[in-house]
């Protein structure tokens, strides 16, 4: 509220004393906050405020200082310099517990939850006094199921271990947990990335309702459509500094992207393949994913990028796992063309992961932390893991060969090795680049990508799109599961949309529009005929 009145240039040096008096006190105000890690200045003199009832979007690429600011606000890190004020009073947030006590409740980018514990335990984890009377326990149950129902529109078994729930339900759990704490300021850091469109809208409703009661919200997302939908004000960060503040209506998405990136990024334009589609690489015959779902057939040709889409849990995830040989479809077969890609080779059914790998199928999993990488190992070891045998020279591994291969493939994915050694210290986007480079080394013919740009900033996303398109142009068949409408529209040659475990629509070329996708998500038959 306050900062937006001040021109950008003054903003960074804003003297608290110069602030206009008689404005209502901000719920949370941050003044001149700075944090450095060694030589890196992660946040420089950051200032912003959130007024009661206001939703402020924090925008920036990976490494722009967003996460640092979130960690400072949530008590995970302590600032080197600067102040945090809650309702006008300076506070020191020494721990997450202190931040929660001050009313700042954060939903972190990663789903932080005790998966062995029940849903109920997780919802109240760390909250208030652990000594509870019987009536307090039943109060907690009631409040928890009400809040869950309010957010998701569905009931939940509060006694189930959280680990048995889907990723999306786990995400609901951490959001409900935050809402149950009655936050003064709710910080949502990429909390929508695993939610489907329907749930995301429900979550936005909840946030607006709470905001109407005076809650402030700091909202962080890489998805421009979400940001434009919910935020009253936008604060852009670049290389640790606040570079601009805009009110709703003052700037369109293009303008915001320019602020964040410091340059114009082409956006929205479709980028289709240049190669005439080659021979079929993957053929699905009479595949039915679950008992009772309608069987379907489809092919993916070399040189094209095919998107798999749908609301979370409607079958697209099962399909990509079937393609990878990680699971077998309920009925039907997945055929993959021969390893040499010649016409005289018989396509073979893939039923195991190894069988797929032998035919040049590679799979980049969604949860790279768990399934994709060894955090503590050096980048190069993460890169060379599946292809290390190629670097044998006279029976002995040659590190020099590995290195030269890595340099070549890193260039292809536009990854510049920096000073960091272990992959765990890279940003999400760069981790994904290394993992994709790893599979490039295996010279894949079919590349399966399970939501590869999740939690990746806009600039890196576009770099990854270039990489994927390059792979397709080089003759690979690319199948990519995506939960982001913009991405599907921007990148895909064709999109297979799933609803309730079966193929609900096949959209191709110009028929891939946000409207056609979303209505296919909900199984609308009107668009289902929009194939080619």
């Amino acid at each position, binding site marked *: 509220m306050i900062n937006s009145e001040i021109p950008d240039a003054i903003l960074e040096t804003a003297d608290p004393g110069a602030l206009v008096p008689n404005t209502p006190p901000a719920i949370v105000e941050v003044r001149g906050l700075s944090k450095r890690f060694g030589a890196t200045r992660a946040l420089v003199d950051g200032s912003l405020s959130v007024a009661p009832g206001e939703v402020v979007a924090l925008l920036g690429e990976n490494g722009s200082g967003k996460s640092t600011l979130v960690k400072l606000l949530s008590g995970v890190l302590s600032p080197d310099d600067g102040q945090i004020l809650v309702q006008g009073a300076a506070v020191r947030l020494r721990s997450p517990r202190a931040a929660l*006590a001050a009313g700042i409740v954060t939903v972190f980018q990663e789903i932080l939850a005790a998966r*062995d*514990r029940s849903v109920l*335990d997780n919802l109240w*984890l*760390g909250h208030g006094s652990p*000594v509870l009377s019987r009536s307090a326990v039943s109060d907690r149950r009631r409040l928890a199921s009400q809040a869950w129902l309010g957010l998701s529109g569905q009931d939940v078994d509060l006694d189930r271990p959280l680990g*048995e729930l889907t990723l999306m339900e786990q995400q609901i759990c951490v959001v409900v947990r935050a809402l149950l704490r009655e936050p003064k300021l709710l910080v949502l850091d990429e909390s929508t990335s695993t939610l489907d469109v329907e749930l995301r809208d429900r979550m936005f409703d909840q946030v607006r309702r709470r905001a109407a009661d005076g809650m402030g919200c700091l909202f962080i997302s890489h998805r421009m459509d979400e940001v434009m939908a919910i935020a009253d004000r936008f604060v852009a960060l670049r290389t640790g500094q606040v570079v601009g503040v805009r009110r709703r209506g003052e700037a369109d998405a293009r303008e915001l992207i320019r602020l964040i990136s410091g340059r114009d990024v082409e956006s929205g334009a479709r980028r289709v393949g240049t190669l005439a589609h080659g021979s079929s690489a993957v053929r699905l015959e009479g595949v039915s994913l679950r008992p009772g779902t309608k069987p379907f057939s489809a092919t993916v040709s070399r040189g094209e990028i095919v998107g798999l889409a749908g609301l979370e849990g409607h079958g697209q995830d099962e399909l990509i796992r079937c393609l990878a040989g990680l699971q077998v479809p309920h009925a039907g077969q997945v055929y993959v063309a021969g390893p040499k890609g010649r016409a005289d080779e018989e396509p073979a059914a893939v039923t195991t992961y190894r069988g797929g790998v032998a035919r040049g199928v590679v799979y980049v999993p969604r949860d790279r932390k768990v399934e994709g990488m060894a955090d503590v190992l050096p980048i190069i070891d993460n890169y060379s893991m599946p292809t290390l045998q190629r670097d044998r020279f006279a029976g002995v591994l040659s590190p020099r060969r590995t290195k030269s291969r890595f340099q070549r493939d890193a260039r292809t994915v536009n990854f510049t090795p920096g000073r960091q050694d272990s992959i765990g210290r890279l940003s999400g986007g760069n981790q994904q680049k290394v993992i994709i480079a790893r599979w490039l080394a295996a010279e894949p013919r079919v590349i399966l990508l399970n939501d590869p740009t999740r939690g990746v900033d806009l600039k890196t996303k576009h770099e990854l799109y270039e990489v994927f398109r390059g792979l397709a142009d080089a003759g690979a068949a690319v199948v990519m599961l995506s939960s982001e409408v913009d991405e599907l529209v921007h990148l895909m040659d064709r999109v297979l949309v799933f609803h309730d475990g079966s193929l609900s629509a096949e959209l191709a070329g110009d028929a891939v529009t946000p409207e056609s996708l979303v209505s296919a998500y909900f199984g609308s038959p009107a668009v289902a005929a929009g194939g080619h």
Partner: protein
Amino acid sequence: MDRLAHLPAALRRSPLTVVLALVVLLLAVNLWLSPTMLSGHQLPNTVNLLVPSVLVAMASVPAVMSGRGGIDLSVGPLLGFVNVVLVGVLVPHSLGSVWLSLPLMLGIGAVTGLVNGIAIAYGRLQPVVVTLGSYLVLSGLALVVMPQPVGVVPHWVSYLSGAWLGGYLPRSLLLVVGALAIWRVLRHRGAVGTILATGSDDRAAFASGVRVSRVLCLAYASGGVFAALAGIGLSVLIGSGDPTVGRQYALAAVAAVALGGNPLIGGRGTMVGPMLGATSLFLIQTMLSSLKVSSLWIQVVYGAVLLAAVCANATLTTRLSARAKVGMA
């Protein structure tokens, strides 16, 4: 009737099934070999032998539950140290009365556990290294205090070696009841829940406002208190001080925890499971001695049973989770 119908399913789901079956089986074999084992005449001796093992298994539980590689190797030597301090220090200085010696010994246990917990939580050291260090320190201190087995236990301790109801209610069970009471209080106060949540994902617990370091200290301190109770149980059993026996309990306790179905990565588990685990290890020992098998074979059998039980538990769990997944689809 309805409840009975559900029993088999509930049993199959429980992590206790394997260990419970093992205890029942071993008990049957033992009774067949020596039918008088549970008679009023023999029961107190049997129970007195069992109590230290059960308590030291309980002492290992909170550390393992707390996760991050949590384990407390020092509980074995700690029970020996408590025994030696009681017999070698407190009794000679006429501090042997129950009102003085009991709180002092529980205090020694709590403080030792707390020191371990502080080193692990605030020093961010690995539990196995920290507790191996205190294992060695306590083993050494026990020998310094009492180079050879000597001495007598105070009156209240030898009183505990007897029984009520004609031998059918051994008084040493009071120690186990005490430990269970402490655990129950911790559970009721929500402490067990936070220990498990911390063990499941310590970063999630921290971010949710759980004071993770304090929780870890509490876990190790409560383990120390149980180990002190085990030390009293040992004193009841041997009636004197012995600086070397404590160590033998250390690894058997970890085995009991695994046998009881508690995963060593933490975050899950029960208290009853490891108690039953310790009981089954004890019953194996009595079975082998009834069969006149050389005691040299005992460790071989221990190891084999442990591996078999852990495998059985793992198979059961994977089958169940596979079924759960099918159910979800």
